């Protein structure tokens, strides 16, 4: 084909100036080791787009999957009075591989001894009610923040985040001073003459709930706020215009549209609350058995690393399952948008 040469560079096959990143890439390609690495990545079908996605996956493998595999391996070992306090999984004698010693006693014990079952169920129950409470408190707060005048929103957001600037341990510890029999709360109530006997709150499940709701409330509020802040409020006007009372409009318009935020907030509260150890230890009584505390006792008091590893593995499975389900639900919601 002959004819006049195209005027535009890309039609002529001549590219515009390379970007800074491209120039860096070309310079690195001059280094043989880098070129070999790129060739290898190319061989296994890794494109530049793939490399970008590979970073978070690499992170997950390094810091989640590997530790989990170590814990999983530990859970199949046997406790020993030694250093480290467990038997090796792979049996080496004089440099010769003699086989794998898998011990499923730990898991059997978990299913047989009802202490573990009870603490699992207890943890999930307490985390569940705490999550509902946090939602009931967090949703109106997030709603109020999202509807506040623009100038107020950042200060309000700061106030939600501010408690993080103090140590978590100290904040939970402070609740002991508030909740104990001769503490601030009982003192105030008695001063007001509302009660004449101090309420027993500390070392009960109520105190654990208070502690969890207090500690995890920001994790509920932040995703809810992020969601509600994007909400188109004329939709509520449209609902009112069509004769819908404000309370009903909240349930039929605001809540369904805030659902992704609600799901995110609930997961962020529920998941860490199930495995929570500090709060039940400081605020709960001896009858409040939660799995986090059981884990701690097995690990540090009984020094039974394999058993506590088995507890951890089951806890993880018990948590991952609902997350996967939630994630599916969310993907469905997103697709329905």
């Amino acid at each position: 084909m002959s004819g006049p040469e195209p005027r535009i560079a890309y039609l002529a096959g001549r590219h515009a100036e390379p970007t800074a990143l491209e120039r860096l890439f070309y310079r690195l390609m001059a280094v043989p080791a880098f070129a070999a690495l790129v060739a290898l990545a190319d061989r296994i079908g890794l494109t530049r787009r793939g490399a970008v996605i590979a970073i978070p996956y690499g992170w997950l493998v390094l810091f989640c999957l590997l530790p989990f595999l170590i814990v999983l391996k530990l859970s199949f070992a046997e406790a020993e009075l030694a250093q480290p306090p467990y038997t090796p999984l792979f049996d080496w004698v004089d440099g010769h591989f003699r086989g794998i010693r898998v011990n499923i006693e730990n898991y059997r014990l978990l299913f047989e001894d009802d202490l573990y079952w009870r603490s699992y169920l207890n943890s999930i129950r307490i985390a569940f009610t705490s999550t509902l409470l946090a939602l009931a408190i967090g949703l109106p707060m997030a709603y109020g923040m999202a509807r506040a005048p623009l100038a107020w929103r950042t200060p309000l957001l700061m106030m939600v985040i501010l408690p993080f600037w103090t140590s978590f341990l100290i904040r939970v510890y402070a609740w002991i001073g508030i909740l104990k029999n001769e503490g601030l709360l009982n003192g105030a109530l008695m001063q007001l003459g509302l009660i004449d006997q101090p309420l027993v709150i500390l070392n009960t499940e109520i105190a654990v709930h208070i502690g969890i709701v207090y500690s995890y409330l920001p994790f509920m509020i932040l995703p809810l706020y992020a969601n509600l802040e994007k909400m188109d409020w004329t939709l509520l006007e449209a609902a009112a215009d069509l004769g819908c009372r404000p309370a009903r409009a909240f349930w039929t318009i605001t809540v369904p549209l805030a659902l992704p935020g609600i799901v995110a907030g609930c997961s962020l509260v529920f998941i860490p609350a199930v495995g929570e150890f500090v709060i039940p230890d400081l605020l709960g009584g001896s009858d409040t058995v939660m799995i986090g505390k059981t884990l701690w006792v097995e690990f540090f008091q009984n020094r039974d690393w394999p058993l506590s590893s088995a507890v951890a593995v089951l806890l993880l499975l018990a948590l991952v399952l609902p997350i996967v389900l939630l994630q599916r639900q969310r993907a469905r919601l997103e697709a329905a948008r």
Partner: protein
Amino acid sequence: MSAMHASPRKPAEPWNDPAAVPYIRLREVSKAFGPVNAVDRISLDIHRGEFFSLLGPSGCGKTTLLRLLAGFETPTGGVIEIDGTDMSAVPAHRRPVNMMFQSYALFPHMSVAQNIAFGLKQDRLPKADIATRVDEMLGLVQLAKLGDRKPHQLSGGQRQRVALARALAKRPKLLLLDEPLAALDKRLREQTQFELMAVQERLGITFVIVTHDQEEAMTMSSRIAVMDAGHIRQVAPPAEVYEFPNSRYVATFIGDANIFEGRVERAASDSVTIHSAEAGRLFVDRSVASPVDATVWVAVRPEKIAIAAEPPADASVNCVEGTVFDIGYLGDMSIFHVALAGGRRVRVAQANRYRLVDRAITWSDRVWLTWPPGAGVVLLT
């Protein structure tokens, strides 16, 4: 009422009937957003069954006025009455009003049919009734096949029609429409206009409609209000707004007008003679409440001016001479831009009554423009 009086025929123009009770009454209503007076002491009566249009440039307060009526804004002053009831204590969800939003405000998580059914559900209508009404509305806006779609799966014009259907579904006594047809193509717009007028006649709904389309306002309205920066400049039936604008603002906002400034030379009981520096002597066959020597303006619509290549027999009044410097061909009309001696430009519209092969008048021709005494309007402001 005694049986002797057979129900008197409703006067066609209730706003001219002092005994008529208006359906909507605005008394000195204002709405300020900080320093901005979006609506500034507006007083207005709208009657039952009217098709009332609000026209005005962007930002003049049309949407704000509708939102005041719907109850989304509380007035900073004045009283709004609907059907004889003071609305100041009535929240939006209890008003006998439905509004179609300029931004549509469709519920994104509901299907088209659910959006339309929403208002009916609030009234706890039986399921079967809701379903038939939704189908009826979908048919009305020609979306019968799209009832299951979500709003984000629709085109802009389709969304607009869903919003319209949703507002109409409840058959409110008063319907507020904020630019309801702006996103529709010409054919669909004309059809929907026709449907709206049919619905209004059938159900006797009172419409208050905001539009930027003057043709639409002209064809559909019983009356038009022309707004400017929070004020209403003129309220009148379409023909009156067009033929007798009360100010230069209205004359140039509605349609096109050539405006000549001049001084009153002679004011008779049925006519007025004006001397204009740029257009000579002007004669208008209507009296004007203005003393001799006062500055006034005469507005002449382009289509009321005749253009000729020969001087008329009597060139002493309502006649200007100039040269054609531009011609715009619009198909049905040609617009001649004529430059007068002083540099002033005048627009003249002429219907193209013959196929255009050779124009009788063309660029740079010397032309004479004339118009009858009944063409001009004297404006005091």
